């Protein structure tokens, strides 16, 4: 896999099928789904529980706005990911082009996915720092790899945004 800046886009070249599949899972992983822990992390409280009025109003007025914002970002990412519908050989490497204008949406979706997965699996700080654990083994190990891979992509996008800014 190779990532580089190409004009007004980031290009991920020679993306192997395994990593391509992980990328395809970004929009779905970004949803809290049935995980209460993920829901609570993505839509965290704005104040201490004693501020009951504020917390209640937040749920009514702010959370739906945030939900729309996050949804919009994942939709943009979902559209970009349609490029990964490889029509050639089934296990061929793919290329992905992310327009710089979509960088914020990607940062948001990758972050949503990382936070939701981490909350669902309740990874410890120690596990999150373990960048050398093999993704093969259990669903938990694969999810940890997913969190780290998405983090790596986030870091690259951030570097490019800052270089651009």
């Amino acid at each position: 896999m190779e990532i580089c800046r190409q004009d007004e886009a980031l290009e991920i070249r020679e993306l192997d099928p395994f990593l391509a599949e992980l990328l395809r899972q970004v929009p779905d992983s970004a949803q809290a789904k049935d995980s209460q822990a993920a829901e609570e992390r993505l839509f965290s409280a704005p104040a201490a529980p004693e501020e009951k009025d504020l917390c209640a109003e937040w749920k009514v007025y702010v959370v739906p706005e945030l939900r729309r914002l996050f949804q919009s970002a994942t939709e943009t990412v979902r559209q970009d990911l349609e490029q990964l519908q490889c029509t050639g050989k089934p296990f061929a490497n793919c290329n992905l082009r992310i327009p710089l204008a979509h960088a914020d949406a990607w940062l948001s979706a990758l972050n949503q996915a990382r936070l939701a997965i981490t909350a669902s699996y309740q990874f410890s700080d120690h596990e999150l720092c373990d960048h050398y654990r093999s993704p093969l083994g259990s669903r938990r190990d694969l999810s940890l790899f997913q969190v780290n891979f998405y983090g790596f992509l986030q870091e690259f996008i951030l570097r490019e945004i800052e270089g651009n800014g």
Partner: protein
Amino acid sequence: MARAPSPIKTRAPPRINRMAQPRTTAKNTRAATERLKEQGCVLAFSMSRLHRKQQATFAVTPLIDFPHATLEMPTVEQEEATRQEIEMPWNVIVHNDPVNLMSYVTMVFQRVFGYPRERAEKHMLEVHHNGRSILWSGVRERAELYVQQLHGYLLLATIEKTV
């Protein structure tokens, strides 16, 4: 020998809870009544949201009746917060979480608060090492807005009253 002047006894002015006062003064009401009397209108007050926490609802109580007009005097029905409570500074606090990248958090602080990179990094490191950092202090509504923006970037942020 001159005597020391006796201390002037002063009384503290009565404390007025201004938030409980409707903006319509008696003088204005009388003037309005006169005008309406001339026009033969019926007047009813209704006051919309002043502020989320200082909502004043006006119940109607018939006060004056004359052939062509009725003036209904406002009465304050409820008062939830004092001025002191509203004006008290609130802190915007960002809490540590092990997932958000340091570079990402720095970028968010720069974007949301317009801080230069050095200041944003200082706060980011404070969050990282101390578990939290006060990013901003000020009026509640703006603090809420900042927290909303920070939540939009998925940071763990809260507001709390200054002690």
